[in-house]
């Protein structure tokens, strides 16, 4: 997993609430057995027309946003299924940060396992960031995870909260399994022995 420290990039405004995981990556792309290559399917039902050509109205198809690394979106981003293909698709396209007022729980977790930073801001700050994002490639945002702030093109700063554990994980880029096995292996062994006595039917 790539570390996340500071990111400066173009932010694409996606002014839709309840962006669900079927929207982010429709099911026809879930048949892969790999984590990579899903970027072409990102938002595909909005991004492509029925004949497969690009829909020029969709934000990520507009010249200013084709290389966006940040998405600014409406409330409850990532609701729906648990498919980790959603963050994989974002990542494969080049998105490293999503900003919204709120995120669905499973999607939120999945982001941290893939080096993507989901940032929750107030409704008021979201409107400000939408304004910044609408200025396209002329107005990049800087996301500074260490300082927990978003710096806008006009010197505006939006502070955000993040769980310290999750922050540390993104900053280090460390994989959970290695940490659990190394640090908690004996505790898991002990738990299993005790649980087997307590609940022998399992």
């Amino acid at each position, binding site marked *: 997993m790539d570390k996340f420290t500071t990111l400066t990039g173009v932010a694409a405004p996606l002014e*839709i*609430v309840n962006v669900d995981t079927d929207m982010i990556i429709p099911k026809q792309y879930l048949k892969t057995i790999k984590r990579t290559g899903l970027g072409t399917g990102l938002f595909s*039902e909005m991004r492509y027309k029925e004949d497969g050509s690009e829909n020029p109205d969709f934000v990520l198809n507009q010249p200013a946003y084709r290389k966006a690394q940040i998405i600014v979106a409406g409330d409850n981003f990532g609701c729906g*299924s648990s498919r*980790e293909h959603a963050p994989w698709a974002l990542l494969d396209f080049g998105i490293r940060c999503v900003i919204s007022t709120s995120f669905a729980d499973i999607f939120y977790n999945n982001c941290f396992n893939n080096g993507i930073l989901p940032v929750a801001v107030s409704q008021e700050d979201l409107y400000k960031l939408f304004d910044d994002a609408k200025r396209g490639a002329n107005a990049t945002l800087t996301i500074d995870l260490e300082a927990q702030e978003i710096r806008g093109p006009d010197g505006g700063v939006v502070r955000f909260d993040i769980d310290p*554990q999750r922050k540390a994980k993104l900053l280090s880029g460390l994989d959970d399994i290695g940490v659990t*096995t190394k640090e908690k292996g004996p505790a898991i062994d002990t738990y*299993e022995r005790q649980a087997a006595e307590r*609940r022998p039917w399992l």
Partner: protein
Amino acid sequence: MPPRTLYDKIWDDHVVDTQPDGTSLLYIDRHLVHEVTSPQAFEGLRVAGRKVRAPAKTLAVVDHNVPTSDRSKGIDDPEAATQIATLAQNAKDFGVLYFNERDVRQGIVHIIGPEQGFTLPGTTIVCGDSHTSTHGAFGALAHGIGTSEVEHVLATQTLVQKKARNMRVTVDGALPPGVTAKDIILAIIGEIGTAGGTGHVIEYAGEAIRALSVEGRMTVCNMSIEGGARAGMVAPDDKVYAYLDGRPMAPKGEALAAARRFWDTLHTDDGAHFDAEIRLDAAALPPIVTWGTSPEDVISVTGQVPDPEQIADEAKRLSKHRALEYMGLTAGTRITDIALDRVFIGSCTNGRIEDLREVARLVEGKKVNPNVNAMVVPGSGLVKVQAEAEGLDKILVAAGFDWREPGCSMCLAMNADRLSPQERCASTSNRNFEGRQGFKGRTHLVSPAMAAAAAIEGHFVDIRTWG
């Protein structure tokens, strides 16, 4: 010890380790695995040279990708075939019990867990699928996880978690005839919104929940995620014990007696704290139909498509306008005037034997409307066998329903079962998102009874006065 909720008790019982900031390592008793969200996890294990820590606590099945037509001669879609073959190989390599597409025990992962007695009260259950919340009907803590977490559970049998908040949804009173578990959960989602349960585990309580069968409770818990809650649960009772009696993987004999003593402690203590409380009156609930592209877009069957102009918040108003445009509906249209092209009966929400019995009872001796293509997809091979033993298939086929092989099917349309653009479907599944049942397809979520009646009439009807 202070009074605890059911969730508190199961949580406490599974904590391996807690750090000062509350980040905990939670032990997982039961891990269900399917073909779509597991290949990358097994690949990760292989690359790192890791094993599955507790193969006996892991159960694998194919469901999302399998065709619901005859599959005895193999699977045509090469990508689906690859994914299915990959799961078979992974199960073999890592020593995990696996039900393949020709096994009578195969079916939707959330239907086969309970059916096999793999799902038990007081356990922690995870699966790389958001509808894992279904298993909460047994008084288990069950929720969906992402593929990185699937890999973590395979390797360590634990999950890194922070404790969620407690929410209780109490449904008082008795349901009117024709109103079902599906209507209860759709009403709850309408009430709290699709993000209302975010960060919470929901406990469903009250007279109407207690009166539901275990299968009805599974329907309710199943759609907890549509209300934003990763997990929903109901305290176990004699109905749950009766359901589990004799299931292949459920405890028996002395082990069962010990288990029962423990299961009897699985209820919320008097005075336990809930961070949020919601109350609904079952007697006031109508049959519900969704009109939009979010499960919160609910309306009574006697109602009309609402007018987004009434919504003050701009982003929400625009989203609901977008939903109406996508659905091809105009505000003010009566729900019973909405004509249908397709009817889908099945899914982990409503693909169990009681659902099929209800549909068969309602359509016996009737004919599916000539404008409608209606399909029934049993939730598992064992549901199918049971339905056929009861003659339900004959009733359904005589009425003009297509009787299929088990799987997720048109709930998410990963296989060939899908809507064409602009086709309109009454569906007993759980999501009406854009494109969910097929590109540009239009989904209305309803109960099995409402779907059955709609299939016959070609449009929605009020099941309370129909027939």
